[in-house]
């Protein structure tokens, strides 16, 4: 839940200016998605293109160096799957 959810209009700053950098992290966009990326590690060469292309900035390398999407923020756009040169990412329909 974002911090502004219950804010009354009088408490908004001028022009709804946001003066706290990085506050978008409070808005969990993961519930927008209708499909999720699944990584097949056997095919992945850890090139990081998915990390670069992700418009949400939600893909990060894990301890082993595999790039994994944070499903709390992933909108399920499928760009990572489309751009993966090894076809290691599959989009699975959300149940």
């Amino acid at each position: 839940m974002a911090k502004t959810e219950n804010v009354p209009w009088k408490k908004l700053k001028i022009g709804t200016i946001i003066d706290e950098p990085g506050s978008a992290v409070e808005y969990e966009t993961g519930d927008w998605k209708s499909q999720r990326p699944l990584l097949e590690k056997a095919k992945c060469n850890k090139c990081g293109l998915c990390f670069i292309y992700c418009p949400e900035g939600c893909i990060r390398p894990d301890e082993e160096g595999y790039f994994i999407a944070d499903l709390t923020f992933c909108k399920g756009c499928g760009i990572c799957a489309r751009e993966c040169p090894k076809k290691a990412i599959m989009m699975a329909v959300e149940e």
Partner: protein
Amino acid sequence: MAKRIGIEVSLAIAEAVKLAQADVIAAYPITPQTHIVEHLAELVADGELDANYIPVESEHSAMSACLGSAAVGARTFTATAGQGLELMHEVLYIASGMRLPIVMAVANRALSPPINIWGDHSDAMAVRDTGWIQIFTENGQEVVDNILCAFRIAGDQRVLLPVMVHLDGFHLTHMIEPIYMPEQNEVDRFLPPHQYPMPLDPNRPVTMGGFSPPYIYTETKKAQVETLAAAKPVILECWQEFGRSFGRQYQPVESYHSQRARVLLLTMGSYSGTAMETIDKMRAEGQDVGLVRIRLWRPFPFLQLRQAVKDAEVMVVLDRAISFGGPGGPVASEVKSALYNEKKRPRVASIIGGLGGRDITIAGFEAIINRGVEIAEKGSEQEFEMFGVRE
């Protein structure tokens, strides 16, 4: 002491912007606004005005550049007309919604097609819901005065909203008029230094116009509604202060022999001068007529309008714009809605005229008033009538 000089109104606007010491001007030339921005470009190029002049590739870019400029806290000016204002349309909402105090002179011009560079209010009326403060002027002096007022109103910390100052294309922009140009020290006393409370600054980052989901968007719009409403007393206060400083007084609704007059004509902009002469003539002939002029179009002065017209039986509203497929002229429509819930109210006749720069003479205004009275008293099958159309 202010000197009274003969000067083209467009040039006088540029000189007023210089007196206000604008920091940034971003503009695209379009007739009949051109002389305003040409003269500003000259003032900047000659080093008379210490400002950045951004020659952009379109009006959409002009207003966009103004957003950035106002957002970093620079005193910002632009000017446009007709199609140029329409090309800015979506950016106008950004300026008001983000509370960016931009001042813009609009040299009112008809909208195409067919192409017409002359004055009417089609452009101004098409942007009436964009959240800007809109002030209409009647002559060169009023334009200069209200450009200075616009900077003070826009930059007032209780307002921080963009302001349009409307002047009729050609009928005002290209006239040479005697105008009192204030001295720099007088303007400095009237207009405080520009300050924006939360400017874009890499050392103190802020996000403007950020993402607003359904749970917060309505609150942002409520805040905007209240801010624009709260701007009204500040505008009145500014005009009073201007009157004290410079001796010329402005009101949101101005009256001319309107007290207890049975029939009222309502106008906006430069045609009001001819309208006043018409009222003089008709009153001299014993007719019970008066004139009401709306100066502050947004935020609309509901109370002052109701007060000004409460005793009249008939109101004839001249619109210089068309709300296609709508109830009539935009001003008549607004006036009707302002009066609808009043117990005692005049009947309102909506007449559209003066489109695309067509003159309305004294005889013309007389005909408009007489026809308006006829419509109000006998009724009409039409919601509005267009004056002077050849059948």
